């Protein structure tokens, strides 16, 4: 009997939860704010669904209602992707070690 592909996706999902669990516990507490902004950015990979929806219409039906929602979702996700990664980078650039010559 063939296994439903859903089971494979479910396996990936469950294993990723465990990966997430161990990876996130190893994040140092001082970087919890960048953690939140970067998870924000990566969860906006939902943009792939938005792009598929946006490109679904033919050349005459670019603006059927489904692709309009796709376009809006693209804009929202893009705000998050650029905003999330850039603000994370800005924050991480500020974390500096004590200068050695001062010690």
């Amino acid at each position, binding site marked *: 009997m063939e296994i439903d592909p859903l089971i494979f996706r479910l396996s990936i999902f469950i294993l990723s939860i465990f990966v997430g669990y161990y990876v996130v516990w190893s994040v140092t507490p001082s970087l919890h704010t960048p953690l939140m902004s*970067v998870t*924000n950015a990566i969860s906006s990979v939902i943009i792939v669904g938005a792009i598929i929806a946006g490109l679904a219409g033919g050349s005459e039906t670019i603006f059927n209602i489904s692709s309009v929602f796709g376009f809006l979702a693209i804009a929202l996700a893009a705000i*998050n*992707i*650029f905003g999330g990664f850039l603000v994370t980078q800005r924050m991480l650039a500020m974390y500096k070690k004590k200068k050695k010559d001062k010690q």
Partner: protein
Amino acid sequence: MISANLSAIFYLVSGVLFILALRGLSSPETSRQGNLFGIVGMIIAVVVTFLSTGNFSSGFIFVLVFILVGGSIGAFIAYKIPMTAMPELVAGFHSLVGLAAVFVAIAAFLNPEAFNLGTQGNIKLGSLIEMSIGAAVGAITFSGSVIAFLKLQGIMSGSPITFRGQHLLNALILISIIILIYLLCSTQSSNLFWILLSISFLIGFLLIIPIGGADMPVVISMLNSYSGWAAAGIGFTLENTALIITGALVGSSGAILSYIMCKGMNRSFFNVILGGFGATDDASSSTSKEQRPVKSGNADDAAFLMKNASSVIIVPGYGMAVAQAQHALREMVDTLKKNDIKVSYAIHPVAGRMPGHMNVLLAEANVPYDEVFELEEINNDFANADVAFVIGANDVTNPVAKTDPQSPIYGMPVLDVEKCKSVLFVKRSLSPGYAGIDNDLFYKENTLMLFADAKKMTEDITKNL
């Protein structure tokens, strides 16, 4: 156009890169590289999506335009936002993820052919279940985050909004969401889909209004988690590995942060979610209000105490963020260091309005991260320190949490500030903190209250050093 198998492999690669992005955050040295991994993963996912649709007609131009418009808005916000406003920013970003998930679900519901999910009115059962769960969680994330944003921004009062029958109403709505998903899947009715979305928006709103301002660290982490589950739900619908992996990562990340925040307050997750904390304490605190003597001083006294100390521990809190005092504080510390005084910073897990909030502000003010310590690392050092400088923190220093079993914050881990030889407490007035209880520390023999704005007081002390 590339094959479905090849694109699935690329999605897996970007999923792995996202894992590495989070892994990088285990230390500040590797974190910048981690962020780069995340960016590469995102680029791979987007490019592969373009290649796999193989559609480079006029629609493609529109997609690029919308990416550019959204991207420039995002980049503009990322460069302009002050570090003190990070909690609002993150809450705002969560709401966008939620709304994007809702929009993608709507697009898939209206045009299932484009996603290979069947035809309209006859969507595959599994996909419809995943889609409606993703849409419902996305809608809750959106409206909940909007409320969190308004509360953090101060547009909406941070005090909890409660009413009779609130929990019963919420429970009924949550049950009706489950029933609606069941009905939707058996009838495929689009009306039910819209009703499901509307009441999910409503419940997101109702769930967050009873939660008070200082519980926002839990709320933000929880909404972070929800946005992940919403993404995972959509990922199942689209059969996209990158989205499923990311959703699971973000979902568990937010859940862990919520857990850490709840533990930092010694409260259960449900206690926070049910809300109303700090709202009804007015009566109890006024009955026990007695006039107790307080020693107060000025910047000169504070400078004198610190000048004669050999070690100082700084305890920052949300008040420092409000007063934007982090730079002034760092200047004061620089002066102290010039006088060979050892200075370190003690951060309570729930200081500020989001996890790690204080660390970011101190990093912004060029405080080296190896001078900043977490509660467990530094709590024993208070007994050996000469001066504790509490700036903008309150409840997290209250010794009552250790001594009075009647207190609402009893059992909460607190910084042992009172063990210092002397305590300098910068505060605007004697008003109680968020939990609505008096801080015993104010009345201790070795405490000197400095009534002033945190930034102004810090600057004045620096002048007097």
